[in-house]
């Protein structure tokens, strides 16, 4: 941190106001992880803002090149750790497209259902921490109460609360557990009333409105040009959602709306995300009620591991099992850029195959990377206190930015 001279007593009264450089982060409670912001201040007004990232860089893209396609699924969880299943989904869809695999409807619907639960989970963490940044402590407790229930559902499905790796290339990792319908049903029936609870605490709260309305505004053109995606664009008036525009995993069969606002400020982003909570709950409900029967893995013995019974009784299944575990499966040469709508915006995996069992190159387009790039536009010319609100409203995950 550069040391500003702040000895006010010695400053002559007629001196020109002095610029000060303020270092925010990498260890700052409102930067949620290890983001460092360098703010140039004129009094309390930010004249210039810059982000310094890379503190969480772990070289995941390099590691992808060293592992087999199926092994890489576990790496994808660790990129955007607040929505692991949507990362799994995006990677699996990309590789499945390269393999030209047909995924059975039951697996597709299960992916949609769990993906939407992940979105709810991620939005709850955002709502809780964002409102806590702005001084509303109790919302955090309510949000984490519901999040806990979602994590229990994930544990029930995959044995893991957070790093689930439940989607695999070709389908799901395990058969859905006994009694999952009751667990999901119980949660999703109660959830809309919980969203009402959050709204009662915040939506008409005068302190909340004052802290968020008119703050962190940037024009839609600016946001698009800087690579911002997702709820931030929807809060600025653009009804663009990849689930509608480029449907994947049978999203076209679900009935839901894209919430939009036109104000483009922090409050509008809050409204959009709260409405998305309700829409996601609607999708989960539809998936639960209309879940098709049938297999949850593709009929592709060279990609999907055989079940234990077959492996122990059929020679062919044993050979496939041995081959997949020891040397993986080969993916035809080519490249694919697959996008999905993550809770933060456009998430994309660009997978290049050279025909071997390991990806030649994987580029991960994390939505937080673009969203964070648009941040200086939202905070320059505003007060420092508003920067915290704008920062929280971008809903970034540093694992997703730095990879």
């Amino acid at each position, binding site marked *: 941190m550069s040391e500003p001279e702040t000895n006010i007593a010695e400053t002559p009264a007629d001196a020109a106001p002095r610029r000060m450089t303020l270092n925010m982060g990498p260890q700052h409670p409102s930067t949620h992880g290890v983001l460092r912001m360098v703010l140039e201040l004129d009094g309390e007004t930010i004249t210039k803002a810059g982000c310094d*990232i890379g503190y969480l860089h772990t070289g995941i893209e390099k590691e992808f090149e060293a592992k087999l396609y199926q092994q890489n699924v576990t790496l994808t969880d660790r990129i955007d750790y607040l929505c692991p299943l949507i990362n799994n989904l995006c990677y699996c869809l990309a590789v499945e497209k390269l393999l*030209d695999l047909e995924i059975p409807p039951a697996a597709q619907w299960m992916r949609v259902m769990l993906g939407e639960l992940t979105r709810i989970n991620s939005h709850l963490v955002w709502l809780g921490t964002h409102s806590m940044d702005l001084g509303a402590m109790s919302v955090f407790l309510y949000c984490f109460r519901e999040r806990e229930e979602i994590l229990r559902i994930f544990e029930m499905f995959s044995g893991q609360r957070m790093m689930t790796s439940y989607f695999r290339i070709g389908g799901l990792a395990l058969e859905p557990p006994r009694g999952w319908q009751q667990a999901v049903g119980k949660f999703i029936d109660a959830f809309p009333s919980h969203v009402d609870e959050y709204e009662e605490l915040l939506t008409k709260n005068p302190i909340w409105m004052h802290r968020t309305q008119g703050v962190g505004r940037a024009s839609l053109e600016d946001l*698009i*040009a800087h690579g911002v995606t997702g709820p931030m664009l929807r809060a600025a008036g653009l009804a663009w959602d990849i689930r509608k525009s480029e449907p994947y995993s049978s999203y076209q069969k679900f009935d839901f709306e894209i919430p939009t606002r036109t104000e483009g400020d922090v409050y509008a982003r809050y409204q959009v995300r709260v409405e998305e909570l309700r829409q996601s709950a609607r999708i989960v409900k539809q998936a639960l009620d209309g879940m098709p029967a049938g297999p949850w893995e593709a009929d592709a013995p060279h990609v999907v591991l055989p079940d234990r019974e077959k492996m122990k009784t059929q020679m062919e299944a044993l050979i496939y099992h041995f081959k997949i575990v020891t040397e993986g499966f080969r993916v035809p040469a*080519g490249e694919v*850029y697959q*996008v999905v709508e993550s809770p933060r915006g456009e998430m994309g995996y660009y997978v290049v195959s050279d025909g071997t069992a390991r990806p030649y*190159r994987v580029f991960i*387009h994390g939505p937080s990377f673009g969203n964070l*790039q648009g941040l200086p536009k939202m905070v320059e010319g505003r007060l420092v206190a508003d920067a915290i609100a704008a920062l929280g409203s971008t809903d970034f995950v540093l694992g997703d930015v730095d990879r």
Partner: protein
Amino acid sequence: MSENALAEAVPGSVLASSVHRGQTSLEIAPAQLVEVCLFLRDQQRFNRLSGVTAVDWYPTEPRFEIVYLVHSIECNERLRLKCRLPSGHAEIESVTGVWPGANWYEREVFDLFGVVFLNHPDLRRIMMPETWEGHPLRKDYPVTGLKYDYTQE
């Protein structure tokens, strides 16, 4: 977007084109990249750059393939532009003037692949420390990293 429209507007810019799994890729002459991007943005409504990345085809030459993932929200269309650069002269014009969002993506490619973007407003490392030697995503850079002597700091 028809490929012919691009070939007409910027003659000689499209070196090759392919469609794989329903996705279009165009190989663009590096010298005409900015002209192509301006045409796509202004005439074809490709108002968004989804990302910039690179693929290292070491030891084949030209070694680096810079990939631009271009997107039009309005037309709901995606396009991939590719430029091949030789290892001895890994330089290309920056597209930050066309889409400001390219800034960090180009810095990332510069950091991890060592490709230089000319006329970039702020070309420095973004992920690795400023003092880092080498470019980790190059294929001749080992996954385990190079030996680093912490006592020599």
